[in-house]
């Protein structure tokens, strides 16, 4: 039943399966199918094409309100704190965002706030060089808050427009690491009132239901004002973002679609919905 012909129960089952395989979750997939079945029974969906279009519309409508760019604006520096669990693509995403900002003419400073992981500072330094951004870093093993503090000082002194703060990956279940992040937020706020203006949570599209727990916990404990969904260039569809959207009402700023400097797209609800099933 691939796209042409009349609707029957098999088609609905297939769509439910496709949504589950896209990590939308069994409950949400079930809800969509219940809604589609009702429309079909009322005669509103004459064929499979109409059914698929309707599902795409429903998903787009759920996600469209989440499309909004990072509101970079004076007074500068505009501070972006980048957080998330281990390995999701925080450091790489910072490089990509810095590149976009540089292309728009903004002076950018990167803060090497991951003072824990091996070669994290070295990795960010390569990105700073690639995009033409300043970077502030201390030695590996130093205090992350101290780096952040120095970075904000430097940004104010140099007239930097945007500061992107890299942080160590941390599982949301590690209370002491979440507490460390709350401390960093306080340090930022004391140094620059109103900062950080953006707390950007990076989520990995290859994750399953745990992405929802991550989003809820980070939002609850630290606060989240924007989301980036990475690794959509693989075969994972990132359907968890539908539940993330329902449970937190955080804008999705970008999607990551690769490992190089240009592989960042503004989040588009309709293209995301089209690719989902």
């Amino acid at each position, binding site marked *: 039943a691939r796209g042409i012909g009349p609707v029957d129960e098999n088609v609905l089952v297939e769509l439910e399966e496709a949504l589950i395989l896209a990590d939308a979750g*069994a409950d949400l997939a079930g809800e969509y199918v219940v809604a589609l079945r009702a429309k079909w029974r009322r005669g509103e969906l004459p064929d499979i094409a109409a059914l698929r279009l309707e599902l795409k519309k429903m998903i787009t409508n759920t996600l469209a309100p989440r499309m909004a760019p990072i509101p970079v604006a004076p007074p500068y520096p505009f501070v972006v704190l980048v957080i998330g*669990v281990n390995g999701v693509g925080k450091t790489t995403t910072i490089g990509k965002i810095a590149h976009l900002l540089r292309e728009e003419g903004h002076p950018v400073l990167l803060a090497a706030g991951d003072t824990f992981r091996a070669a994290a500072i070295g990795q960010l330094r390569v990105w700073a060089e690639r995009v033409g951004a300043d970077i502030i870093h201390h030695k590996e093993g130093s205090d992350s808050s101290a780096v952040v503090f120095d970075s904000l000082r430097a940004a104010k002194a140099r007239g930097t427009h945007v500061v992107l703060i890299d942080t160590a990956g941390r599982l949301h279940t590690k209370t002491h690491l979440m507490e460390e992040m709350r401390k960093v937020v306080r340090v930022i706020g004391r140094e620059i009132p109103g900062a950080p203006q953006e707390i950007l949570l990076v989520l990995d599209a290859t994750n399953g239901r*745990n992405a929802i727990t991550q989003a809820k916990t980070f939002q609850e404990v630290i606060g989240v004002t924007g989301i980036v969904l990475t*690794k959509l260039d693989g075969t994972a569809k990132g359907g968890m973002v539908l539940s993330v959207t329902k449970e937190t009402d955080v804008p999705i700023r970008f999607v990551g679609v690769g*490992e190089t400097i240009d592989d960042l797209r503004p989040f588009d609800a309709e293209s995301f919905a089209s690719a989902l099933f």
Partner: protein
Amino acid sequence: NLSEKFQGVLKNLRGHGRISEGNIEEALREVRLALLEADVNYKVVKEFTAAVRSKALGAEVMASLSPDQHFIKIVHDGMTSMMGGEAQDLDLARRPPVPVMLVGLQGSGKTTSCGKLALHLQKKKRRPFLVPADVYRPAAIEQLKVLGSQIGIPVFDSDPNADPVDICREAVRQADLTGCDTVLLDTAGRLHVDEELMEELRRIKEAVDPGDILLVADAMTGQDAVNVAKAFHEKVGLTGVLLTKMDGDARGGAALSIRAVTGAPIKFVGVGEKLDALEAFFPDRMASRILG
């Protein structure tokens, strides 16, 4: 967790005295939903619940257990046996130096796991050699060098402009000359749909003939786990799996999915960011975790 959700459903089973066609469907539905919520792949869930159904309906009544207890036992035992048998170690029973390849998606924990395996081998009185074969990611070579220095294990001085296949071949040669008996090859993260990079893995395998090829997979991986595992397995043949970030709260259903589509044993579990955070894999513990 499953037993809580089950209470209502199982009370129904208990009331009927034995498991039958009539009362099992609701229980199976709860199992199915629990497994999907735990990120077990949809198709694997279907196969598993079908197997549970036939076992439960075909089973003799167990005198010592009520039908609901019996049902939970079938589910738990079925999952444990699907997870694989006893904990296994690296396959080191061959003439040294034994190369071990670590492969997987971006960010899954390969480099860190290389360091962990090196420490594990050192504790077992072996002489490991760490090889950075990732020439793409910024500071990847530096990352493995830092880890090696933290535990006093030699690291091959990879040339970032070299071909990873040549790096691996040269490193195994150097291990041989310096008396190292196990060579841990840290490969770059790659998409299973990147033909060129998947071909690079096949060429590395061909060049060094590894004793083990481990898929390093993130415990938080969702439905996509089967696609990834199948592709890596078909390209290079996996001999084992290392499941990382198990110190989080992901239920880890990807483990069952990966096992189901590759048959490869899960050999190790990563339980933290430090190099000593590596444990053997216990199938029954994983089954309990997935079932919640």
